[in-house]
């Protein structure tokens, strides 16, 4: 038996109305139904952070939330960060600081960083290290990621 729910959510500013299977995770909904494949799935059990997206401004694991739970929510994925002309300041800073190698974990780091920068620019390295501790980078490029986030925090361009 297949159980479904009707949901209306806003994804990167666009209203999406769908009938989804109750067991469909938000990550699979974004990737398979909406073709927003920038959200990456690593472990699918909440350990790696690759699937991090913003739901109503909060960074969450999209593999641990069902799309059927999110009626009325506002979702931001990595595709929603840049404008048509410009990269998001975090994306530019990641480029400048070599904060990515293979790029698999990058969307999760970007959205985690976007959430913390939306709350404060008063961030030291230790705070950033703790804030990104839920995201794993398999290329071990953490220092570049931290440098990039520090740079954006200092420039204040995120607020």
């Amino acid at each position, binding site marked *: *038996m*297949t*159980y479904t*729910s009707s949901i209306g959510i806003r994804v990167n500013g666009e209203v999406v109305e769908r009938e989804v*299977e*109750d*067991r*469909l*995770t938000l990550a*699979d909904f974004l990737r398979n139904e909406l073709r927003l494949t920038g959200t990456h799935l690593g472990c*699918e*059990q*909440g350990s790696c*952070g690759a699937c*991090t997206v913003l739901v109503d401004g*909060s*960074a*969450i*694991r999209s*593999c*641990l*939330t*069902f799309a*059927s*739970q999110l009626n009325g929510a506002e979702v931001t994925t990595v595709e929603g960060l840049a404008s048509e002309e410009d990269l998001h300041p975090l994306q530019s800073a990641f480029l400048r600081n070599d904060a990515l190698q293979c790029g698999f974990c990058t969307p999760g780091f970007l959205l*985690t960083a976007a*959430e*913390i920068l939306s709350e404060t620019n008063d961030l030291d390295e230790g705070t950033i290290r*703790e*804030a990104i*501790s*839920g*995201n794993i980078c398999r290329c071990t490029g953490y220092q570049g990621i931290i440098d990039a986030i520090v740079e954006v925090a200092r420039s204040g361009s995120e607020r």
Partner: protein
Amino acid sequence: MKPAPFHLETPQSLEECVALLAEHGDEAKILAGGQSLVPLMNLRLAQPSVLLDIGGLKALNFVEENEQSFRIGAITRLRDLERDANFAKSQPLLAEALPHIGHTQIRNRTTVGGSIAHADPAAELPAVLLACGGTVKAVGPNGERKISADNFFHSYFSTDLEEDEAIAEIELPRWKPACGWSIQEISRRHGDFALIGIACCVTCDDEGVVTDANAAFFGVGEAPHLVESASSLVGTKADDETLHQVAEATAAELDPPTDIHVSAEYRKHVGGVLARRALSIAYQRATGNIT
């Protein structure tokens, strides 16, 4: 898809949720933050056929303090407590536990009631509830009942809750100014489950003599464990000699398991070290020597 098929229901009240629990029996699970349940479902270690999503029940999302007690609604999310500057003043032990629990993305979803109901023996909140002498308010078909923390946690992922009961809120005693606190844990990486940890409260009189000391361990067996050894601090000024004796008594009292991470001997030894460290910090906070 990762999880087995299920039907999502969104009860509009806890009473409706309880009625649905009674109707579906052990086929149903309550979904709050989902940060413990959904990994189990994605691994198909849990395959409930009905999920009761209570995450939207605003009536269960509150923090309320009155003259007698401090109450936190079941679906209050940990990150909301973390962001509340007053919370750390009102309940410093619980506040200090929060950063140890998972990661920010997890705490954005994790609920107080969910963590308590899940009763992972390595989790921080059950031990905090136990150390503070808190209670759980559960709602079932026959109404409400309150269960003290020391009667609530039975064994691995197993509590005093009946199949058709749900947590409405937890209640903690109001924090006393003369009460110091500390939470200490050892984990492999920040945010990982604790290999072993301790949450404690120490209360002193005006002379700096300990009048009450409670210490609850997590990650030491089937349930959080309140150690008797802490009570030998009472009547002392937590001098080095007493703390040393308490550490030894704690290591002797703990009966932890060996698992793939560490041995029972390691846990016993570190348990003693953590008891000394945590109780010393709690005592200094109680006497106002550190904040």
